C-alpha cells in the first residue's frame, strides 16, 4: 500500500512537470527536427547558420527585424572581419547629431545593430495591411517548441478546410494559434540561390532560417554546453569523492562506537 501510494505520488509529480511541455502547441503537432544543436553535445552547424542568415537577408528582412543582433555578432557564425565590414557597409544607419545638430545617414559599422525594415511599429503596420511583423531575435525561445515551431510554421501553410472562415488578407496555417496568420507563405522551392550551392528546397530554406533564429535567440548555446560538460564532470568527481568521505567518516558510528 505504501509503495503504491508513493508510486502514484511520483507519477503525479512527473505528470505535473511534463504538463509544462504538454502545453506546447496551441495548433497542430510540431515537426520534430533533428537539429545539429540538439542534445548535450549538440552544436550549431555554422554553414547552416550562414545559409540561414542569407535567407533572413533575402526573404525575412523585408518585414522582420533581428534588433538584438549586431553585425559584429556574425563573427560567431564564421564570417571574417572583412566580410562583416562589407555586410555592414551595405546598410544605411542613422547617426548624429553632428556638429550642426543634424542627424545624418552613414554606412553601417560592425558595432551597429542590424537595422530593421521599419522605423517603428506604426510604419510596419501601415506597410503590412495593419499586421505587425514581430522582431525575430528571440522568436526561437518565445514559442513552445522553439525552432521546431518556426520550421513547422514556415512549412505548415495549407488551403483552408471547407467551412473555415478566413479573415480578409489572412492565410490558413494550422500551426499558428487560431490557424489564421497575416504572413503570406514566405518560402518556396528555389526562391533563392545558396552561396554554398546547397539545393534550395523550401524545407531546406525553412530549416536553415529556423536554425539561424535559434542562434539569434541563444548565441551562448555552444559556450553553455561545452562549459556544462566540464562542470558536470567536476561535479560527478566531487560527489563521488564526498560519497566515500562520508562513508569513511561514519564508519565508526555505523559499527556502534560512541563519538
Amino acid at each position, binding site marked *: 500500500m505504501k509503495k503504491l501510494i508513493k508510486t502514484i505520488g511520483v507519477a503525479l509529480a512527473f505528470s505535473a512537470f511534463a504538463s509544462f511541455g504538454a502545453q506546447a502547441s496551441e495548433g497542430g503537432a510540431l515537426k520534430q527536427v533533428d537539429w545539429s544543436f540538439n542534445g548535450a553535445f549538440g552544436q550549431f552547424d555554422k554553414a547552416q547558420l550562414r545559409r540561414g542568415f542569407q535567407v533572413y537577408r533575402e526573404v525575412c528582412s523585408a518585414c522582420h527585424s533581428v534588433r538584438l543582433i549586431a553585425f559584429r555578432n556574425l563573427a560567431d557564425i564564421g564570417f571574417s572581419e572583412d566580410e562583416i565590414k562589407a555586410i555592414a557597409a551595405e546598410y544605411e544607419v542613422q547617426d548624429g547629431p553632428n556638429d550642426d545638430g543634424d542627424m545624418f545617414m552613414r554606412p553601417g559599422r560592425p558595432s551597429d545593430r542590424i537595422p530593421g525594415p521599419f522605423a517603428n511599429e506604426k510604419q510596419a503596420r501601415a506597410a503590412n495591411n495593419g499586421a505587425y511583423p514581430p522582431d525575430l531575435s528571440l522568436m526561437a525561445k*518565445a514559442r513552445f517548441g522553439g525552432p521546431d515551431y518556426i520550421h513547422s510554421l514556415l512549412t505548415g501553410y495549407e488551403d483552408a478546410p471547407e467551412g473555415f472562415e478566413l479573415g480578409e488578407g489572412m492565410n490558413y496555417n494550422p500551426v499558428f494559434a487560431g490557424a489564421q496568420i497575416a504572413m503570406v507563405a514566405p518560402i518556396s522551392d528555389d526562391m533563392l540561390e545558396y552561396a554554398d550551392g546547397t539545393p534550395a528546397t523550401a524545407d531546406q530554406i525553412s530549416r536553415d532560417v529556423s536554425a539561424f533564429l535559434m542562434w539569434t535567440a541563444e548565441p551562448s548555446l555552444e559556450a553553455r554546453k561545452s562549459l556544462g560538460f566540464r562542470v*558536470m564532470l567536476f561535479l560527478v568527481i566531487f560527489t563521488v569523492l*564526498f560519497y566515500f568521505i562520508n562513508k569513511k567518516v561514519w564508519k565508526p558510528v555505523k559499527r556502534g562506537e560512541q563519538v
Partner: protein
Amino acid sequence: MASSTYEPKNRFIKAVNQQLPILSLIHGAVGAGYRAPKNLNYWWNFGSLAGVCLVVQIITGIVLAMHYTPHTSLAFASVEHIMRDVNYGWLLRYIHANGASMFFIVVYVHIFRGLFFGSYRNPREVLWFLGVIIYLLMMATGFMGYVLPWGQMSFWGATVITNLFSAIPVVGDSIVAWLWGGFSVDNPTLNRFFSLHYLLPFVIVGVVILHIWALHIPGSNNPLGIDVKGPQDQVPFHPYYTAKDAFGIGVFLLLFAFFVFYAPNYLGHPDNYTEANPMVTPPHIVPEWYYLPFYAILRAIPDKLGGVIAMFSAILILFAMPWLDGSPARSARFRPIYRMLLWVFVADTFLLGYVGAHAPDYIVHIGGVEIPCLILGQAATAFYFLFFLVIVPVVSRWETPLPLPKSINEAVLKKSAAKA
C-alpha cells in the same frame, strides 16, 4: 547558541577569539560543538541545501543587478544585454533563474520533512513559525524577481497578482493603486519591485539566522521523533553532518547544473521572451511552477475575495500545525494511517499544481471520464483544507501510534546489527 567548548591552540587565534568569540560561535553552530541526533537521514540534508540556494541567489543576484536596468523601456533589453554582452552573463542569469526553482524544490522538500517527522511539534513551534515566515518571504521575493525581466508573463503575472488585493472590501482599489504607485503596473511598480527584490533576500538571511538559532535551542528533530536522551544518541555536527551535507550538495548541484546547462528555459514560460506589452494579453497567464498549487486554489473558488482568502489561508494554515496535530508521537513513521493520508496530501498538492498550469476549462481525461480542470481543482482544494482542518486533528488524536523505540542509540544499534 549553546556555549562552545572550542579551545584554539594557536595563541593569536585564541586571543582574537577571546575578544570576539566568532570562532566559538561557528564551532557551536555548525562545528564539532553542535551535537545532532545520530540517526538523521537524507531528508535532513535539505536545510543546508536551502542555505546553499540562498547564498547562490544572493551572489548571482548582486552581480546581475550591476548590469540590469529597472526601467520599463530598458529592462528587457538590459536582460538581453546580460545574456549576450556581459562575460558569462548568460551563466549568471540562468543560475539565478533556475536557482529560484531549485530553492523552491529544496524548501518544499524541507517543509515536507517537517510535516512528515513532526518537526513543528513542541519544543520546536517557534522554529516552525520562522520557517513559514521564510517561505512567505521567498514567495514575495520570487514573485517580484519574475517581474524584473519585463517580459509578457512578468507584466501580466504582476497585473493579476497585484489585482488580487482589489478584492479587499472598501480599501481594495486604494491598496492596489498604492502597490502599483499609479493606476496600472508601470515604471514605478518595476522600480519598487526591483528595490524590494534586492532587499528581501537580506531579510530572509536575518530570519534564517533566527531559524538556526531557534534550531539550536532544542536541537534537531530526528526520523524517530523521540527526544535525545544523552550524548550516546548524538554525534558532533562536524565532521559527521558536514561530510553528509557535502555529499548532498554534490548530488543537488548535479541536478541544478543539469537545468542550467542543458534545459535552462524548461522551467520558464516562453512568453517571457516577448517584451511586456500592456496592449496584448497572453491567452494563458500562468505563474511560475512553484505558485501553481496556490493559483489553482485561487481559481477554484468562484468568488474573487473568497479565492484570495482561500489562497492565503492555504499557506497561513501551516502556522496552526503545532495545534492541529495532537498525536502522542511526532514522527509519521509510527502513525501508519496518518502517514498514508499525508502521502495522499502530497499527491493532492501535485494535482493542484497540474490544475494550476491549465486553463479552468481544460478537459482532463481520467479513465474515459472527462473532467474540467475547474472541477478537479475544486475537489483538490477541498481535500487540501480537509486534510488540515479534519484529517490532521482527528486522525492524530484517534490513531494509536506504534510502540516507540526507547532511545535513538538503541534504534541505531538495532539497525546496524540487522544489517551486519
